[in-house]
Structure formats: structure tokens, C-alpha cells
């Protein structure tokens, strides 16, 4: 079937079987491999992406169901060569080690801060409680999100060095 959705601001269209999971559509069809997966049962949250601004588990959403919706992945976090404060925060506060859960964590953090710009620790922990990190023990993830809250986009601390490459948008296969 034909599937059309907006991914990181670009409209993409592709043929795919109805059973194709959104995570596979993003990774295998669009080549956006920043979205990872870690289980089959909606328990780990590695595959989190934003669907119409809301974090969802892309292993439990069919690409067909996402058709017509707006998807934002880790590749769409930085804008115009500027890192999202959440990305900067994860580097500043060592919010990642192996990096595998990181994209999902950062997207949930972005959605949280969009809703609540100054969350307390309990709110942050609750917001990421559907996502498992096996490396960090979460404390530094919490600190990273707090860092981002304290350095909102537009404040000078959130600016990144000039060498930060602009994120390309997805190539759409014919």
C-alpha cells in the first residue's frame, strides 16, 4: 500500500506492506537508522519517536497507521545546524554511554520540555519510565534533561559550534 507521512518536516511517500512497523519504515525504507529497537513487546522504548509531537513506540505503530501523520525522529532534533538543548544536555551531563537508548530518551525529553519547560526530578523520571537504559543508571539522563530545561533554545549556552553539520532530511526512495 502507499504510505505518505511527514518525517522531520519532509513529506515522504513509499510503498510498503500493511504489516510494516513504523520503526522498520523509518529505518529500512527511509534509511533513518537513528531510531533503534530493543524488544518485541513495547517494553523498552528504544524505538520512541514523536508522532504529532507525542512520544510513541514505533515498534507498536504500523507505518500504515502513521500515514498522514507527522513523525519526528532523532535526525530531526537539531535544526539548522544547531543542536537541540536536549542533545547538548546529554553531552554535557554524560546522559549516554552506548548511545542505543539515547535517541528515544532525547525525543521523550523534548516532548516533555515542550509541555513542561521546567519539570522536577520526579516528573522527568516518570516521563522516561517507559524507556530502559542499561548503561547510565538514569541519574545522568535526569541531569541532562534538567540541563536542557535550564538552557532553552535561543539562550547562548544552547548554541553549538559552527562545525555541527546540518541534518539532512530523508531521501525518499522512488
Amino acid at each position, binding site marked *: 500500500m502507499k504510505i505518505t507521512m511527514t518525517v522531520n518536516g519532509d513529506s515522504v511517500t513509499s510503498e510498503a*506492506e500493511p*504489516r*510494516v512497523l513504523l520503526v*522498520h519504515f523509518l*529505518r529500512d525504507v527511509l*534509511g*533513518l*537508522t*537513528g*531510531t*533503534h529497537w*530493543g*524488544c*518485541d*513487546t513495547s*517494553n*523498552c522504548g*528504544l524505538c520512541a519517536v514523536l508522532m504529532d509531537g507525542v512520544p510513541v513506540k514505533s515498534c507498536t505503530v504500523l507505518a500504515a497507521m502513521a500515514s498522514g501523520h507527522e513523525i519526528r*525522529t*532523532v*535526525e530531526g*532534533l*537539531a535544526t539548522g545546524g544547531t*543542536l537541540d538543548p536536549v*542533545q547538548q544536555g*546529554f*553531552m*554535557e551531563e*554524560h546522559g*549516554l*554511554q*552506548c*548511545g*542505543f*537508548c*539515547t*535517541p528515544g530518551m*532525547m525525543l521523550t525529553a523534548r516532548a516533555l520540555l515542550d509541555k513542561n519547560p521546567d519539570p522536577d*526530578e520526579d516528573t*522527568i*523520571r*516518570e516521563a*522516561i*519510565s*517507559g*524507556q*530502559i*537504559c*542499561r*548503561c*547510565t*543508571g*538514569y*541519574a*545522568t*539522563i*535526569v541531569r541532562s534533561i534538567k540541563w536542557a530545561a535550564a538552557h532553552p533554545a535561543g539562550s547562548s549556552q544552547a548554541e553549538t559550534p559552527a562545525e*555541527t553539520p546540518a*541534518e539532512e532530511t530523508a531521501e525518499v526512495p522512488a
Partner: protein
Amino acid sequence: MTAIEERPANPAAAAENRPIGFGRLQRKEDPRFIRGKGHYLDDVVLPGMLHGAMLRSPYAHAKLISIDTSAALAHPGVHAVITGKDLEGLNLAWAPTLSADVMAILATDKVRFQGQEVAFVVADDRYSARDALELIDVEYEALPPVINARKALDADAPVIRTDLEGRTDNHIFDWEAGDAAETDAVFARADVVVTEDIVYPRVHPAPMETCGAVADYDPIDGKLTLWETTQAPHAHRTLYAIVAGIPEHKIRVISPDIGGGFGNKVGIYPGYVCAVVGSIVTGKPVKWVEDRSENLMSTSFARDYLMHGEVAATNDGKILAVRTTVLADHGAFNATAQPTKYPAGFFHIFTGSYDLEAAHCKVTGVYTNKAPGGVAYACSFRVTEAVYLVERMVDVLALKLGIDPAEIRLKNFIKPEQFPYQNKTGWEYDSGEYERAMRMAMDMAGYDELRREQAEKRERGELMGIGVTFFTETVGAGPRKHMDIVGLGMADGAELRVHPTGKAVVRLSVQSQGQGHETTFAQIVSEEIGIPPEDIEVVHGDTDNTPFGLGTYGSRSTPVSGGAVAMVTRKVRDKARLIAAAMLETRPEDLEWEKGRFFVKGDPSQGKTIAEIAMGAHGTVTLPEGVDGNLDAEVTYDPPNLTFPFGAYICVVDIDPGTGVVKVRRFIAVDDCGTRINEMIIEGQVHGGLTDGVGMALMEIIDFDEDGNCLGGSFMDYLIPTAMEVPDWETGHTVTPSPHHPIGAKGIGESATVGSPSAVVNAVVDALQPYGVVHIDMPCTPSRVWEAMQGRHVPTAGV
């Protein structure tokens, strides 16, 4: 963070107002990860690549009667279906394990655990491959399984390893350490003896990225390029050469970014071998990535030690001796990864941090109808089991004698002046200042105040527990003369090249799974030679481009490869001195080194920076006799001894008396890993390990029913802590450098995993004192805690 000792600030770093060498430094690997540009196994896509999927046994023990693959082969997307019979033809149905046993790649005669590999499908895409699995028809004849390890050696127990000639039972090995007679004698004259049965249940490393491989065999030049989720790419290359008969120079193993390992990615799994065979058979690259259930049900588990502990002491709490017998459940194949001489790993260290008169252990390994593997999950080769045993037993003793658990530990510590300390199982602890770390943890916790609070709460019927643990780790295997894995000595190579412009590349055999090697190793080079970390490229994870070494596990990266990197950098620096002397027309011994520069003694204005020396080496400078025109070096570092990190942990829990629900309120961790390279990364390693410990203590378990069905085969049942179950960690550190390590570093990767489970369980048992509880086996789920409060024990896997 509180520090008793800090390294002096790096003068060069201070002068240039940027970090050079050791210290907190943002990670060089982060910019790609935070942009979603990490390159993990499943991100590898090759032209024409096919996809594999594995059919697995639903039975724990069954005879394989027949396999019909015709319907699967008729599936339009399927290119090949490989069975054990096919592999037999290639002499690949069985392969040696890392423990001198053999394991089935695809079953030929029987299946021996639920989830065992039976057939491998190669198809156009992952969806077709999965679909085709449903079309394979396998006929089994169920056999009675051996699930409870305590029954594995019964006379009437079914023999699991009928493939091994002459095998009539399920016994694998008996192994002993220490002096049995001496220990018995001490026990016979002790005032008091405490005993306890302590199970360390089967758990799983469960890295967030599952295991996988992409095999690309080029039939024209006979070269196999193999991308794998492996912590040990060089060891894998050698093993593939031995097993598959492909010449070693025609095998290139690439380990891309790894989404966590924790020991899970040390071994070679049947799926990897099948991907290789699939690529050879089809002539195309083949990718295989396991799903989460496959990961939990079939890849390396950890622990599964059924221990009986005994401690002999005087009435005033002086510990005299520790004795233990262990039944080790190794699953269907003995596939644990550990040094050959040590079938129970470094379990010797059950003597703990205490000055004993005698100690003895006996470990018996048995086969059961469970997944093989073992010695995974950040355990430093069975140190986790050993530390858990002794730290639980010390608390059992403290309870019996009515002595505070912190006090009894302080009373029995090995004293600083006793190091290097020869323990009673033959190991030499390199350095330690245990009391200092213990006191720091108690200060940070406010230990006396916590005890007062606990007493008040008990009056009110509230359950609060304070768990104390002190651990001594042993990591950094070799030395190579004592330690090898399948004959490969546990030493690591390193190669450093300083380019003409003074930038450098360092090549390593170890592979990061999140530990930040690209940063840490650049910092070691930087510390030794003064090139800023950002000017040093760290190359790893590709056997064609790195020197040989045994890999990253057992916390050996910093102790072994860290030593190698320090030594190779010093070798380059020594060479730089010769070249600088030639450039300055002086004698090498007249030069003095300061970070990044040689200068003439007494005349600091006359000097050459490393960049100038590098250009000189590659340029037209007349080089001294015997000096090549480069600034490169290679070493293989063979560690003279293991290193012995240690730490003091205090855990505070609250338990709901009505439900048995345990809440970890605080966790204080003071670690000593010797010299600290990057405190940010060290703290991260500790946090992760503490979370592992809370997970194992409270929720993680791979259990089985009596038929051998795995009850922990998905993340719905194998529970890993979320951000809600763990507190904000309180960490501190002391610094007691290793006297034998080039930079004094001891390693930190597994300390917290080793030390924390007993801290949590000790806290739970401490909270339950009003109920007279002496011990609870992990995991301390609400149900198990409540049952313990009723005086009942809930078994796991029939144990």
C-alpha cells in the same frame, strides 16, 4: 563527589585552559550518538544483502526425529534453509566452546534447551525470513529434562550430553581453591560458625542492542568480512579460522558501535556462524539479528550458582575462615568465557576484603537443560558470585553476634600495611586502603543518624533497612602465562603513530560497548605525550586495522589495554627524545620532558614540541643510528598481575510491611579504582553497575518451569529497572593506585555490579529484623519479601 586525594592539576591543561590528559572531558563519541549517527550492527546495509532468521526448539530436551524444509524452500523469498545435517557436511554442526567443550551450531541429534538453534532461513528480507520459519516442519520426541541443578547428578538423571562419548552423567568439573584441611581445623576450634544456603539465580546481561552479524564472503579472493556485535573481535577472528577452516588472514571481523555488551557479546553464537554459512552458500551478504526473546532465551546468561557458605569466627567478631561449596549450573553446553585454568573464574576472591586464617571452596559444574553461556553480565569472571557470598555471610555472622555490620567489617579488613596481600586462595591483592573508603561511605551516608532513624521507625512498626557491603574486585586478566582463552594469552597490543603534523592515531584491540574508549584512551596518550585528546584518533573494532588482543570484558580494557597504551606512548616518547636530541644537537640525557615538549636542561627556550619532533622524524633531520624515520611504536602489554579495585557501598531501603514492596531510598557508593582517567566516565560506569545490582537484587531472573520452559523470555517478564526504581546515586571515591600498573589504574567497569547486589539484599534483610529473617534469595520481589516475613522460602527453578 568527595575526594580524599586528587591528582595534581595538569599544568599544561591549566595553562592552555583546556583539558589535556586526565580529568573530566566530554566524550569524543557523543556527537555522532546524539545525532542518531551511531553505526550499529543493524545499521549495516550491503548491496544485495539477504536476511537470516533462526528456528528454535520449543522443547528443553527432545530427540530430533526429522526436519522438513520443503515448504520453506518453496517460499518465493527464500534462498536457503540450513539445518544441522547441512552443517555436518561442512563439519560445522558442532563447534568448540570457550571452555574446552563443544556446542551445537544447529541441532543434529537432540535439542538440549528451549530456544536452541534448529534451522536457519536465508531470505530476501527479514519479513520473508520470519514467515518462512513458520513453514519448517520439525518432528521432536520429548525427553525428560534436567532443570533443577541439584538433581543433575542423581543416578537416575537423564544424561544430557549423549553426544560426548562415554558420558554417563551430567558432571562437568570439580574445582577447588584454598586449603581444605587447614580450613577444617580453623572451623573446628572457632567460637562460632554460621552457615547459609545462598542462591545467586540465573540472570541475563540483556544489552539494549541484541546480538547480530552481517557476513559477506567474497568467493573470488576467499575473504570473509564479518560485522558482529562482539566485545572481542580478534579472538573471534582466530576462532573462526580454527572452526571454519578459513585462513586467518582472509577473515576480517568488524565490530561497529555496540549497543551495550555486559559480557553478552563475548561468545560466538550459532547465528553468527549460520550467517557466515548463509553467505558462503548464497554468494551474497547475509544479515542476522536476533529478537529480544532469542537474546534472553539463548545467549549467555550469568550466575546460576547455588552456594553453601560457612564462616568461622571468634565471639567478638574476628572472622577466622570462610568455607563454601558451590553447585554451578552451566546449562546444556559448557560455554562460559573464562581463562582456561579457571573453570570457576576468579571465584577465589570469596575471601573478600578480610584478613583470614584459612579459606576453602569447592565448585562443581553440572549440565542442565538450559541455555549455555555463563560468566556474563559485568561479573569479572565469577567475582560477583564470590562477593555476594562473602558479603551476605558476613552479615549473617554480624546478625548472629549482634555486631553492627559496618563495625564487623572494619574489624576484619586487611590493613594498608599488609599490601601486597597474599590471600588464602593464592592471589596477591595489589593495594588497598579499605578502612578509609568504608569511613568515607559511612560519613556520606550519615550512618549513625540512619541507625537512629531506623530504631525510631521500628518502634512505630515501619521497616527501614541499611545494607552495608565492602567488596574487593579482581580484574584485568592476564598475566598471559597464567591466563588464556582457548589458548590465546590474555595480553593486549597497542599501536601509536604520530603523524608529521603532530596529530596521532592509536590502534587498540579492545572494543567499546559504551565505556567511552575513544575518549579514555585518547586521554591516556595525551597524558603521556601532551597531544590534546581531540588530536588523537582512536581506532578499534576492526581486526584488519588494529593489533591483536583479547577484547573488552572482565573490566580489562583500562588495566590491560590502558597499560598497553601508556607503554606504547612512552615508547614513542623515548624515541622522540632521541630525535629531539638530534634536532637540538645535544645528548638525549641532557633533555628534560614537560608535557608535550623536550627542552635542554637549564635552557627551557631550547626545545622541541612533539609536533616539531614528528615533522623532524618524517622530514630531513639526520636521525641517530638505529632510529627509523617515523614517530610510531607498537607494544603488547602483558600485565604482571591482576588489579584489585574495591569499594564501600551503603544502601537504604524502606519496605511496605503490608505488601513487601521494597523501595531503594538512597545508595551511597565509594569506589577506588586507582588512578582516575576521566571522572565523568568513571561515575557513569558506577551508576550503571549500581542499577544492575538493584535489578538483580529486586527483579531480574531467568527462571524455568519444571518442563524447562523459560519464564524470563521477554522484557514483560525479564524486568530491568526503570528510572522509577533507582535513586539519585551518591558517589564518592578514594584513590589507591595499583603499584604494578603503568598509570596506576585498576579498572571500574564492573565494580558496581559486583558490589551492589549484596548491599541491597543486606538492606532488605536488615529491614526485616523484626521478623527474624536471616536471608532472602534474590530477586527480592514483593512476594518473596512477604513470604520471608511469614517465615517461608520461595524457590526458583525448583531450587
